[in-house]
């Protein structure tokens, strides 16, 4: 399972002998570049957690490029999103489906992801949607839930669990917000939420549209308490596109002091200036921040069967100590003297 450094956005690629599944596709050409660098030309399924442009632009690019054969797309529909990017994506999906019906390469697209959605990759790996719960999806964006909270696009962002041989290994948080988290916690069918690896929601940004730091810290604490991640991976970038919040890291480490924080790119809050060279541990896999030296961990690779993560903690920590001594993951770790 690879969390690709796509800049500000999210794209997770799961490769097995039984096929390739992608969850979210990031922006621009980064995912295309990654797939090319890994010589991946057939994608069994693309799952879109929600309709934000930084999660779907890459799919518009993927489908248009025709360098990769995509067989199935499952979208968490959000017609309230109203973005032209969404309409363009639907245009490309529709065109592919029509071509398939006219005898072209097989292709299907399915609208709707709620708790209970399952996708098996061979006999050992299963992706499950833990959210959004059906009640939330049925109400939809723009309505209010039973507690009066407004349901937004991020509230119904799909949360995908990755299970290996029946054990939960990773949780992909999409852009889950505080309303979505509250429903996730309330929904017994979403259990268990514990997973050693967490792809943190919303790139470590604010947890609600109110952009409130205190709320963001509470969200991080709560999420960490229920997921108990050993590693939290942030698909993030430097401004102006994005920046991880200090409150996020503080809340996460307050609940899980030993949790390893892994960011794909180097936040300006961690290092005001980019290093003069890229980290030595960057693999041959594409990392969007490589050329501009904005990578922190860069593209992150997890071996699902063993739990081995690259870059290693030791290599990554050495880079942070040298290039970003005031990094959020150092400063906010309880007991840290930094």
């Amino acid at each position, binding site marked *: 399972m690879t969390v690709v450094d796509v800049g500000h956005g999210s794209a997770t690629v799961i490769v097995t002998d039984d096929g390739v599944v992608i969850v979210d596709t990031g922006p*621009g050409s*980064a995912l295309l570049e990654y797939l090319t660098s890994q010589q991946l030309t057939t994608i069994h399924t693309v799952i879109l957690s929600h309709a934000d442009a930084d999660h779907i*632009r890459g799919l518009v*690019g993927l489908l248009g490029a025709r360098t990769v054969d995509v067989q199935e797309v499952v979208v968490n529909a959000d017609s309230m999103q109203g973005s032209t990017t969404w309409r363009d994506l639907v*245009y490309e999906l529709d065109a592919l489906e029509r071509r398939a019906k006219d005898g072209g390469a097989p292709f299907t697209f399915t609208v709707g992801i709620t708790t209970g959605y399952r996708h098996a990759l061979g006999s050992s790996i299963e992706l499950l949607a833990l959210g959004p719960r059906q009640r939330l999806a049925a109400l939809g964006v723009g309505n209010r839930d039973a507690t009066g909270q407004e349901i937004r696009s991020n509230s119904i962002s799909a949360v995908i669990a990755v299970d290996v041989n029946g054990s939960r290994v990773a949780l992909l948080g999409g852009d889950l917000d505080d309303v979505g988290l509250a429903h996730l916690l309330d929904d017994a069918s979403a259990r268990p939420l514990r997973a050693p690896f967490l792809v943190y929601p919303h790139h470590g940004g604010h947890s609600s549209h109110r952009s409130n730091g205190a709320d963001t810290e509470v969200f991080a604490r709560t999420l960490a308490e229920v997921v108990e991640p050993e590693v939290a991976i942030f698909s993030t970038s430097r401004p102006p596109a994005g920046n991880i919040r200090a409150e996020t890291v503080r809340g996460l480490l307050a609940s899980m002091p030993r949790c390893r924080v892994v960011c794909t790119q180097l936040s300006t809050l961690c290092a005001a200036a980019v290093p003069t060279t890229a980290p030595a541990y960057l693999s041959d896999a*594409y990392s969007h921040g490589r050329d501009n030296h904005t990578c922190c961990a860069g593209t992150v690779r997890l071996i699902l069967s063993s739990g081995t993560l690259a870059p290693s903690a030791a290599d990554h920590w050495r880079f942070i100590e040298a290039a970003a001594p005031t990094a959020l993951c150092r400063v906010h770790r309880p007991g840290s003297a930094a």
Partner: protein
Amino acid sequence: MFSAELSSESPFLCSATEVGVHVLDRTITRVAVIDDVAEARAAMGWAVVDAGMEALPAEGPLNDIGSAAVDRLLSSVDAVVCDHHLAYGDYAAFSGAELVAFCYSRGLPAILSTQWEKAEIEMIRTHRAHIPVLVNPSFIAEPDHLIRALLSCVQELSGAYASSRRPWRTLVRVVDVRPSSGVVVEVPAWQGDEMIYLPTEAVPPYVGEAEVDRRFHARVNIGAARSEELFFLDWEDA
């Protein structure tokens, strides 16, 4: 002996004999400096020398791009640094963008050095697919930057595109039509939100005459960071 390691990722150590720089599989010894302002030619010439190469400031007039004078000049150098505006004093009958694109077609590394990128964006965009490097003159006054720029040119000429330059077939949607002038388009796969104006002469007739919301496919470098870098090739009439 001048040596410079371009980047930690680059396996290529640039080195020089007395004059010249090895860039990938090429040795760049002589660099033509093309600018219609003599002082600017001289300044860029010094930058080339500081970078360990021989500068050949091109005295005008250069006339047409296909002229014997231009051919002699380009045949006698290993790379080119060129300003965009070349019309002062009838220095040349072509623009720097046109010349750099011409060099590209000949496999000759050429850098377009100009402060006019935004002001001349439409004209430059017409040739942008064949301009691997476009920089501000002050940027390549630094020897290391000049060598990096030449490396980028040589890499692209050898087929190794930077992600910001690689064109991908992608969806393009017309968002506005300016009759007899051009169209404004959006590239949904591109990471930016800006709309791009394309003059009529820069697009096929079926694009120039399209209605709003019409969609096409073209090859676009959707990895570009800035809208000024975007170029459009191989339009398809769906």
